[in-house]
């Protein structure tokens, strides 16, 4: 038994920390108010939700509806895959420009990173609206929206992956007199490849999720069916669309996880 008293269970916060906590609580409450948070609505919503479920279930499983929605879902996946592939491919050169200490100087790195930040800041649905104006209604606008969104995502993470890659092989190749571009191609990119694959698979998952709602603004895919279902109060069909999206997104996530383990898990 020691005579020394144990330290206090809790440290008294400094005045500044206390003010910080208080300010954080005020901001959170203010946000709730701004978001129209209402206990009354929370309490009254379950019966309304139950009413929706009653009208939406069972989902519409008529063969011709399933066939139509199936084709739209297929189009959605095509938009996602094509957009993600183009985005991932274009992300590699963009990332080479964004990665610090690799090929170009800090000014170009920072400029490219700022542009990538801007691309990520604009939501994919907004990009879809822009491309609908630029190339017209239809899946091509959706594919372009997915591609640009993927560049914003992968461009930044590919650059980070290359910056974090083991520098040893790159230094050894530099020491042989190899040019910077050769060093990047032979040492940096292969070292970052497992991370590239992982990021690209996440980008594909993200693209599939995004592509399901691009139809809401006329950029192709199954989203338009969801909008029409709700607009016409055809809740069973809307429910079919929701379930179809859920099944496909979960399946793609599982597939992507499996591929990630197979490709990276064994080869890393």
């Amino acid at each position: 038994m020691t005579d020394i008293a144990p330290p206090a269970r809790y440290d008294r916060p400094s005045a500044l920390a206390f003010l910080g906590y208080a300010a954080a609580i005020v901001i959170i409450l203010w946000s709730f108010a701004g978001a129209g948070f209402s206990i009354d609505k929370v309490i009254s919503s379950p019966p309304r939700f139950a009413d929706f479920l009653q009208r939406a279930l069972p989902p519409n499983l008529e063969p011709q509806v399933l066939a139509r929605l199936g084709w739209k879902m297929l189009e959605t996946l095509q938009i996602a895959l094509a957009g993600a592939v183009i985005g991932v491919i274009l992300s590699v050169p963009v990332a080479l420009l964004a990665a610090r200490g690799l090929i170009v100087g800090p000014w170009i790195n920072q400029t490219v990173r700022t542009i990538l930040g801007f691309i990520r800041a604009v939501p994919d649905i907004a990009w879809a609206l822009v491309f609908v104006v630029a190339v017209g209604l239809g899946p091509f606008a959706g594919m372009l929206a997915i591609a640009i969104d993927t560049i914003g995502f992968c461009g930044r993470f590919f650059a980070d992956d290359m910056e974090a890659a083991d520098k040893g092989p790159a230094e050894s190749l530099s020491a042989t007199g190899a040019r910077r571009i050769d060093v990047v191609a032979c040492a940096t990119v292969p070292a970052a490849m497992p991370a590239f694959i992982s990021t690209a698979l996440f980008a594909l998952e993200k693209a599939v999720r995004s592509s399901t709602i691009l139809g809401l603004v006329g950029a192709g895919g199954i989203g338009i069916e969801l909008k029409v279902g709700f607009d016409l109060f055809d809740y069973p069909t809307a429910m079919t669309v929701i379930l179809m999206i859920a099944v496909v997104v979960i399946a793609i996530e599982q597939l992507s996880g499996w591929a990630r383990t197979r490709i990276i898990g064994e080869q890393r």
Partner: protein
Amino acid sequence: MTDLLTTPLARDVPAQTGAALSAPVLPVDLRVTDLSKHFGDTPIFQDVSFGLSRGEAVAIVGANGTGKSTLLRCILGLIPADHGQIDVLGTDVGRARNAQLRAMRAQIGLVSQKHNLVPRLSVLSNVVQGLLGRRPGIRHWSQTLAPAPSREAAMTALEKVGLAHLASRRADRLSGGQSQRVAIARALVGQPKILIADEPTASLDPAAGEDVMDLFFRLALQEGVTVVFISHNIEHALRYGDRVLGLADGRMKLDARAHNLSADALRGLYD
């Protein structure tokens, strides 16, 4: 401190100053003059000077943190020195433009403490990439794209280190000793004039370390290249080095012929 260390620069053979080197006088491949390097306010080494004749093998010894690896990186121009001059194969490293530095490095082979192979590529691709200094471009990014003479040169280098049969194996499937042998093949494939090795046996068990050192110096002798190597293994320094340079307290405390030195004297550098 031993007597050796209290004696200022015990140079029984002053580097390329002529007198003690046996005739004929060989060309100097590498000369370092009054070199100093700081990282921030921390001095790493100061006023380091030495020269290396063609075909000579020099061991650099010293405790951790004495700047041995930093010195090698300065020599290769991978990091700039703060003061002093480095002349490698006629290139003033401090003033050389990028293209001149690359041309100089193309005549040097480096074997690092970690083998630094590209793990996901095949053994042959790793060795082919050792030619990038002399033959830049996409055709030497991988053995698949490499022209036949380069593939042949890489296979010959692998044959010399006894690993030609593993040419298609992925580099990350090799043992530590095999990896270091491949690193030696990669360093030799470009037929360098100088070989630099930074603790090549540090990550290996003693038996593999002996094998690698034997192979490294047998090949270096065969090819007639100048060798600079860092080693914490005093036996290696004395056995494989013609000369031993000792760094302690950021200064060159020893520059002597290996056969004039005892292991005990070198251990003093680590006190």
